[in-house]
């Protein structure tokens, strides 16, 4: 049995395009059976990571292992067990939908044609239509069907819900989560929309500035991160054993989002449980400093894109 084999494992993984590193020093371990969210702004390396896991892109540095094997080996065994949805949802535009299904059937031994037809029928996508004539959302659904009907053990989905209307989104989640319940499948999906993912995922990977900021079980993330609220003060006043992720300040008040293994008991701080969204935004906000933030004086200019939480309003 492959119970002890991790679904996806990276160590020092990196990809360079010319001079710039699209992804750098990426190391994490995703256990099987998880529904994992890969979050990060555009250009943070999400697509690059997924492509390397799918074996389409070759790493410049480090290595990635999928279900115990290297995707670069390209053996039929590995290929059968991974399903990949590319961000651009490429499809053969001149084929009809049913011909795309035949494509899937011809190239995948584990193809579940029933699942594919049922899924498309529920979405009202006619099998006779030409793929090129479908709307963007419908094309995305066809591309998704191709991945799902392949019955892989690991699904790598690049922004699967981006182009979908709420009903289609629900259908997708139903199918995905149904497969997870049935057993044996791990899902890694990247997304901008955090709100959908918080309830669906149980593992979070935060990418920012081409680095992995955080990769852990959702429960652990929520358990080890706290929002410390108190009167405005210096970072040195923050309790020991606590790592500052991000801070926002007003004239009177400081909010620190911190990571702490032990509970914070300092009475001078109000300790609040942050939501997943707050944690993610904290990491995304302070990427350049790698999580360490210095006190900003009232006259210092605000960083662009900061203060997406409405706790802070600059005193002007």
């Amino acid at each position, binding site marked *: 049995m492959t119970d002890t084999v991790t679904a996806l494992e990276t160590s020092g993984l990196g990809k360079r395009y010319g001079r710039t590193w699209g992804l750098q020093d990426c190391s994490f371990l995703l256990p099987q059976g998880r529904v994992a969210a890969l979050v990060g702004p555009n250009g943070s390396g999400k697509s690059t990571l997924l492509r390397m896991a799918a074996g389409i892109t070759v790493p410049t540095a480090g290595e990635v292992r999928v279900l115990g094997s290297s995707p670069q080996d390209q053996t039929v065994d590995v290929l059968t067990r991974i399903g990949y949805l590319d961000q651009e949802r490429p499809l053969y535009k001149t084929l009809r939908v049913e011909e795309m299904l035949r494509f899937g059937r011809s190239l995948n031994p584990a193809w579940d044609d029933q699942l594919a037809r049922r899924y498309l029928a529920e979405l009202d996508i006619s099998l006779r239509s030409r793929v090129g004539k479908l709307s963007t959302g419908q094309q995305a659904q066809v591309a998704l069907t191709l991945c799902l009907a392949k019955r892989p053990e690991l699904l790598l989905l690049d922004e699967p819900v981006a182009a979908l209307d709420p009903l289609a989104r629900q259908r997708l989640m*139903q199918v995905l989560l149904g497969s997870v319940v049935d057993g044996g499948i791990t899902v890694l999906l990247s997304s901008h929309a955090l709100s959908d993912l918080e309830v669906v995922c*149980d593992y979070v990977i935060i990418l920012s500035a081409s680095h992995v900021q955080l990769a852990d079980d959702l429960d652990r993330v929520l358990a080890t991160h706290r929002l410390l609220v108190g009167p405005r003060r210096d970072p040195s006043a923050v309790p020991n054993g606590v790592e500052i992720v991000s801070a926002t300040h007003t004239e009177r008040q400081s909010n620190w989002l911190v990571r702490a293994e032990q509970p914070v008991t300092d009475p001078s701080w109000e300790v609040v449980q942050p939501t997943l969204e707050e944690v993610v935004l904290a990491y995304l906000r302070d990427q350049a400093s790698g999580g360490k933030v210095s006190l900003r004086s009232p006259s210092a200019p605000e960083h662009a894109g900061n203060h997406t939480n409405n706790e802070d309003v600059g005193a002007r």
Partner: protein
Amino acid sequence: MDHDGLPKLDGALIHFRLDPRTGVPAYRQLVDQVRHGVRLGVLQPGDQLPSVREVVTQISINPNTVHRAYRELEAAGLAEGRPGLGTFVLAPATPPITAEHQTELQDELDRWVGKARAAGVDDEGIQALVAMSLLERDDRNVNEERVAR
């Protein structure tokens, strides 16, 4: 059509729903909804709770969350997992609410709300007071049950 003329949606006895904005963890909400159902008599002892798969299909929620909720219900003595069959409701520690009780409680509540208003507490303040009281009570109950075991 069901016997009372209302259309039956599917085999499940209750439909869960999640409110993402309350700040209450998802598994908690499920637990609360089951408790609520039992107290109101919607769920009788012996009724089968929706399977994990059914819940996951109804509302897009991680299967582990459902597992966790059901485990907590088991720990609280409200439900029982039977391998291969599913999770079933047990007789509650407290009997379901009767119509009489309900009217009585509602009257008392009305009076209390009147008092709070007179004291200058606004709607949010009232809700905060109620939430706090419930939380403290719940924590107390959970601790008592753990100790009793």
